């Protein structure tokens, strides 16, 4: 019998069932999520920022890293063919580069730029509150 077990027996008597001393695994409040799951949670909010998603469409909008946002849209066209489009918005200093498939690049301007900035702002506010339970202004836990 180990010294620890002897000491424990002296203190609490029966040491056969010590299961109650173990820490619970993955309790809901303490559960850690991977980046994939967190981005999915964020995207659930992000996709709703641009109004209701049309029937048969799949939309994702999320912040990938410190400088990049991704817009993904998938739907079937008139012929029933699956169509998908991914647009990457990359913040470069005081400009936003829009990159689409087929090596199409352009810097956002005017209304399109304002719409994206508004979307990022809303995304930040809602994700901070709903996913991370932080005050968006102070960044302190709610």
């Amino acid at each position, binding site marked *: 019998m180990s010294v620890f077990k002897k000491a424990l027996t002296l203190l609490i008597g029966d040491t056969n069932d010590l299961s109650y001393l173990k820490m619970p695994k993955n309790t809901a409040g303490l559960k*850690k*999520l*991977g*980046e*994939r799951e*967190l*981005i999915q949670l*964020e995207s659930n909010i992000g996709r709703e920022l641009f109004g209701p998603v049309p029937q048969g469409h799949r939309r994702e909008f999320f*912040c*990938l*890293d*410190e*400088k*990049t*946002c*991704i817009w*993904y849209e998938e739907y079937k066209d008139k012929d029933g063919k699956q169509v998908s489009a*991914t647009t*990457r918005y990359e*913040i470069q*200093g*005081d*400009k*936003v580069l829009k990159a689409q498939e087929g090596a199409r690049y352009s810097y956002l301007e005017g209304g399109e*730029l*304002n719409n*994206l*900035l508004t979307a*990022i*702002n809303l*995304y*930040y506010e809602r*994700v*901070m509150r709903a996913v*991370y339970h*932080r005050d968006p*202004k*102070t*960044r*302190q836990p709610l």
Partner: protein
Amino acid sequence: MPGDTFTPPRQENSTVFDDGNVLEFRKAREGLRPQSEIEAERAVQSAYDYSVTAESERQLTPVEYAALQLVELHKVRQERMVNEDKPFLKEAA
């Protein structure tokens, strides 16, 4: 007779040990400040830090402000997540 032995005057706020060290009770008491006082001081400091941050954010352009928000989000996400490979993100990008 009085005066044969020197008796140091009694000091309310300190005591002298044999090795010459002096323990000052008044200073020790100041070290034991109430928790509420310490928390109030921290709250003031936090409010000050926040006002400094808010002031600096007001100087940013809308794009820089959005960039700051993305940085904050990314930071908070990193704190929450466990490490895992993210090959699907490379595909998306």
